[in-house]
C-alpha cells in the first residue's frame, strides 16, 4: 500500500526546498510514527524534569515501556501484516466500505491476544495496583497503535497524521509539565497512556473519515489469517527476530535488575534505539521515492502482461523494475550511509546529546551498522513482496531470527567488547541473503510473473480422471469368414 507514498511524492515534486523537507518529514512519521513517538516520549521525562528527579521511577518506566513494546509487537505483528494485506485487497477490489470492519475485527483480535499475554505477565511484576492497571491499559493502547500502523500508509492526509503524533507527544509533555516534579511510575504510565490515547484517537478519527462504512463483517480477519498464513508467519518471525537480541542481552552480566522484577541493559537498549531511529530517514526516502516508483514499475509490468503486450514490451517493463530497484538502492544507500557514518565516526557527539556515557560508543557503532543492514533487509523484503515471494520473505526473517539468536548468544559468551557484533553479523548475513534473493527475483521477474508467482498456475489443481472401469469381458466366436485366418 503505497498510497501515502504517492501523496508525499506529489508534495516532493512541488519543486521547493521546503517541500523536499516536508515530504520526507511526513514520510518519517508514516514509516516510523509509533517508534518515533515512543522514543521522543522516553526522552521527555529527562528533558522536562531534569535528570536529578525520579531516576528510579524513570528507569522502571522505560523498562516497562520497552517490555510492553516488544511483547505487543510480537503478539500483534502477524495480525497487523495480514490486516495490511486485507486492506490492500479491499482497496484493489474497490470495497473501501469494508475496511473499517476489517480494522475493527483485527484490532479486537490483537487486543485479546495482547491482554492474554500482558495480564499474566504484569501480574508477575512487583508493581503497585495503580501502575499495574495503567500498564495494562497502556499495553492495549500500544497494541492499538501497532494495528493502526499499517493503516497509516492508506491515509493520504500526511499533515493530519504528523499532527496526530505531535498531539500525543504534546499531551505527554503537558502531563509531565503540570504533574509532580518527581512523578511516580503510575503517573508516568498514565501520562504516556493519555498521550498514546490522544494519538490513537486522532488516527482513528482520520480512519473513520477516510473509510466510513459498514461495521458488519468484522470477522473478515479470521479467513484472511488462514489465507495469508505465510505472511503472518513471516511477520511473527520478523518481530521475534528484531527483539531476540535485546531479550538475550537482558541476561548479560552487565544487566540491571529493577525493583519491579524487570531487567534492562540500558547501554544496549539505548544504542539500538538510537541506531534504529537513525535508519528512519532512509526508510522515509524508500517510502516517498523508491516504493512509489517500484509500485509504478510493477503495475507497468502487470499492466503490460494483462494488456496483451508483446514479449519485448514486457521484457522492457521487467528491466525497468531492475533499474528502479538499483536506483532505490543507490538513493536509500546514500542516506543510510550518511547517517550511519555519523554514528560510526562521531558516536560521542550523539551520546553527549542524549546524556549517555562515552563507554557505550563501541556498542553504538555496531548497532548503527547492524540497524543499517537490518533496514536494508526490511526494504529488500518489501521488494520481494512485490513479486509475492512470501516463502522467500519467511526464509529471510527466519534466517535473521536464528542468526540473531545464535550470534547474540555467541557474543554474550565472548564478553563485553563483543556485544553488538552478533546482531551486526546476523543483520549482514541476512542482508546478503536478501540481496541475493532479490537479485534472483529480478533476473527471474518474468518467470515469477507468468509461472512462479502466478496464482492461476501455482494453485491450479490437476483434475483427477474418473476411476478406470474394469469389466468382465465376454467375447463370442469370430464370424465365419474370419475363422482360420
Amino acid at each position, binding site marked *: 500500500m503505497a498510497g501515502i507514498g504517492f501523496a508525499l511524492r506529489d508534495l516532493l515534486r512541488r519543486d521547493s526546498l521546503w517541500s523536499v523537507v516536508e515530504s520526507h518529514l511526513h514520510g518519517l512519521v508514516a514509516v516510523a510514527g509509533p517508534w518515533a513517538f515512543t522514543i521522543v516520549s522516553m526522552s521527555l521525562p529527562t528533558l522536562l524534569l531534569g535528570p536529578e528527579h525520579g531516576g528510579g521511577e524513570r528507569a522502571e518506566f522505560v523498562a516497562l515501556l520497552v517490555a510492553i513494546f516488544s511483547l505487543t509487537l510480537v503478539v500483534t505483528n502477524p495480525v497487523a501484516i495480514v490486516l495490511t494485506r486485507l486492506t490492500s485487497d479491499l482497496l484493489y477490489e474497490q470495497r473501501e466500505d469494508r475496511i473499517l470492519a476489517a480494522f475493527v475485527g483485527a484490532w479486537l483480535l490483537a487486543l485479546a491476544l495482547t491482554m492474554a499475554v500482558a495480564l499474566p505477565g504484569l501480574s508477575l511484576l512487583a508493581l503497585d495496583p495503580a501502575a499495574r492497571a495503567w500498564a495494562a491499559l497502556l499495553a492495549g493502547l500500544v497494541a492499538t497503535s501497532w494495528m493502526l500502523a499499517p493503516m497509516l500508509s492508506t491515509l493520504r492526509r500526511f499533515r493530519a497524521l504528523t499532527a496526530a503524533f505531535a498531539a500525543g507527544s504534546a499531551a505527554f509533555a503537558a502531563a509531565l509539565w503540570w504533574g509532580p516534579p518527581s512523578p511516580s511510575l503510575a503517573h508516568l504510565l498514565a501520562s504516556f497512556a493519555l498521550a498514546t490515547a490522544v494519538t490513537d484517537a486522532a488516527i482513528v478519527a482520520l480512519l473513520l473519515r477516510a473509510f466510513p462504512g459498514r461495521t458488519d463483517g468484522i470477522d473478515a480477519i479470521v479467513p484472511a489469517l488462514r489465507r495469508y498464513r505465510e505472511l503472518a508467519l513471516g511477520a511473527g518471525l520478523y518481530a521475534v527476530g528484531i527483539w531476540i537480541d535485546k531479550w538475550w542481552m537482558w541476561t548479560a552480566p552487565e544487566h540491571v535488575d529493577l525493583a519491579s522484577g524487570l531487567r534492562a541493559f540500558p547501554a544496549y537498549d539505548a544504542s539500538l534505539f538510537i541506531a534504529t531511529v537513525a535508519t528512519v530517514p532512509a526508510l522515509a526516502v524508500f517510502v516517498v521515492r523508491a516504493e512509489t516508483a517500484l509500485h509504478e514499475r510493477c503495475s507497468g509490468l502487470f499492466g503490460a502482461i494483462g494488456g*496483451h503486450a508483446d514479449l519485448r514490451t514486457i521484457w522492457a517493463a521487467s528491466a525497468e523494475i531492475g533499474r528502479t530497484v538499483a536506483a532505490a538502492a543507490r538513493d536509500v544507500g546514500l542516506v543510510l550511509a550518511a547517517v550511519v557514518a555519523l554514528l560510526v565516526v562521531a558516536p560521542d557527539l550523539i551520546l553527549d546529546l542524549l546524556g549517555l556515557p562515552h563507554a557505550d560508543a563501541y556498542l553504538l557503532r555496531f548497532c548503527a551498522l547492524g540497524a543499517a543492514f537490518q533496514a536494508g533487509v526490511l526494504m529488500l523484503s518489501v521488494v520481494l513482496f512485490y513479486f509475492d515471494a512470501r516463502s522467500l520473505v519467511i526464509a529471510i526473517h527466519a534466517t535473521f531470527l536464528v542468526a540473531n539468536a545464535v550470534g547474540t548468544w555467541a557474543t554474550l559468551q565472548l564478553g563485553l567488547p563483543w556485544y553488538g557484533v552478533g546482531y551486526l553479523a546476523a543483520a549482514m548475513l541476512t542482508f546478503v541473503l536478501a540481496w541475493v534473493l532479490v537479485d534472483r527475483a529480478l533476473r527471474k521477474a518474468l518467470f515469477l510473473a507468468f*509461472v512462479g508467482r502466478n496464482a492461476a498456475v501455482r494453485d491450479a489443481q*490437476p483434475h483427477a*480422471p474418473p476411476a478406470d472401469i474394469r469389466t*468382465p469381458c465376454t*467375447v463370442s466366436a469370430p*464370424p465365419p469368414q474370419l475363422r482360420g485366418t
Partner: protein
Amino acid sequence: MSDGRPADGAKGDEIADVCLIVEGAYPYVQGGVSSWTQDLILNQPHLRFHLLVIVAPGPAPTLRYKLPANVCGVTHVVAAELPRGRWSWRVSPELLRIIHEFVDDLLAYGRVDDLRRLVLILGPHRHALGRRQLLDSPEAFAAFQRLYERACAGASTLNAFWGWRTLVGGLLGALLAPLPPARVYHTISTGYAGLIAARAAVETGRPALITEHGIYTNERRLEILAAPWLAVDDSDALTIEGTSNAVKQLWIDAFVAYARVCYAACDPIITLFEGNHPLQVEDGADPRRLSVIPNGIDLRRYEAIVRVPNAREGGSRPQCVALIGRVVPIKDIKTFLRACALMLRQVPDAMCYVLGPADEDPPYAAACHALVDQLGIGGRVVFTGMVNLMEWFGKIDVVVLTSLSEAQPLVILEGGAAGVPSIATDVGACRELILGRSDEAPRLGTGGRVTPLGNPAAIAAAMSELLLDEPLRQRCGEVMRRRVRDWYDKDSLHRRYASLYERLRTMPGDDDAERGR
C-alpha cells in the same frame, strides 16, 4: 483364430484386441460418433475392446451407453492435463531443454521421429515427471520464450503463454498418459486421441489405424478462428499488409502437427467419405493409406417401409418435404423455411415438416417460428419435435438437408433405403451420397439434388422440380434405394472392419515399429 485364445468368457485382464481411443465422445456423450462407436463394438463381438477415453476436466461424466459385454475396460485421460509431477524429482536443465526442443519441433513439423525420441526420453521418467518439471520450471518458461520468438513474435504474450501451456500440456499429457496394452490401436480422430494412437504405435510397435468422421483439424481450425478469447491480435489481419493472428496460427499449426504425426503412424487412414481425402492429404496423410468405410444402415428395416401415395399419385395426403434434424443454427433451418416459402409459390398444396427436437437452442427455435409467421407460411409448415421416423418415411416425398456442416448424414441413407430422394447442401458426404462416389461402377445416376449453402432459391427450385415431376422423383428415389443397398449396408461395412481388425491384430509387432520412420 490365429492366436488360439478362448472365444468365450475371456478374463477382463487379458490384453485387448483393440484399444479404441476416443476424445470427447463415447461413452459419455450422445451423438453420431458415439452411436457409431457403440455399433462398431457391438458388431465385433468376437473381439475384446479396451476404451481409452479422453474426458474434459470436471466432475465425473455419466455413462450414456451401456458398455457392451466385449468391452474389458475403460481408461480415462483428462484432456490437456499433466500430472503434478513428483515434488522431489529434479530433472537436469539439459534434459528439460532437450525435451522442449523435441516438443517444439513436434509442434512445428509434426514429425514422427520427434515423437519417437520424446517417447524414448520420457519413458523412464514417466512416473516422476509432470507439470512441475515440464511446464512450471524456468527451463520450460525459457522454452516458451523460444517458441514465442519463433512463432508468435509481436503477438499477445499472455495468449501465447496460455496457448503454449495448453498445447504442450496436452501433448506431454498424451505422452505420459497410461496406455492399455492392446494388439491394435484405433483412434476415431486426430488431435489428442490421434497423438495417443501415434504414441502407442511408436511405443509398442503395434499397428494403429484411424477412422475420421469429421476432420478434427478443420473443426479446431474453425473454432480457433472464431475464438473471441484469441481475438486480441486480430486487428492486424484486417490491414492490407497485416499478418494473420500468430497465436491462432500457433494453435492451428499444433493441431495440424498432431494430425501429421497421427497420419504418419496410422495405416490405414479411414474416413466416412471421399470428400475428406483432400483435407487429410493437406494435413500430411499419405494418399496410399487413405480409404473410405462409410456409415451404413440397417437396410431391411427401411426397405420394409410402405409408401403412402400422395395426391399426385392418387392418394389423399398432400405432397410433403421434410427436414430431418435438430432445430439448431448449424442445420440452417431458416434457409429451409425461406426455401419452403419460395417453393410453396410453385406447389401451394405441399406441406413442409421439420422433424426433430427444438429444445436444444430455444432462442433459435423461437426465431424460426417467428420467421414462419413473417413469411406467412404458418399453415404449411409444421415443427413436429421428436418423432419416430419409421412412421414418417412412407409419407415423405423429398428429404431436405440445409446444413452448414455435416459428416455423413444418415437421414439421407435412411430416406434413400425407403426410396425417398434427397436435396442437400454441398457439405460433408452429401454429394457422394446423392450423386455417387467416384469409384461407383456402374454409375447409378442422381438420387436427388445438391445445392450451394444458404441458397433458398436453389433449394426451392430443386424441391419444386422433384415435387412437380413425379417420374423424376421416383427415379431419384430408386437410385437412392439401390445406392444404399450396394454401398451402405451396415452388415457389409462391419465385415470390412472385422477383416481389417483381423489383419492388423495378427500382424507381428516388431516390424510395425519401423512404420513412419
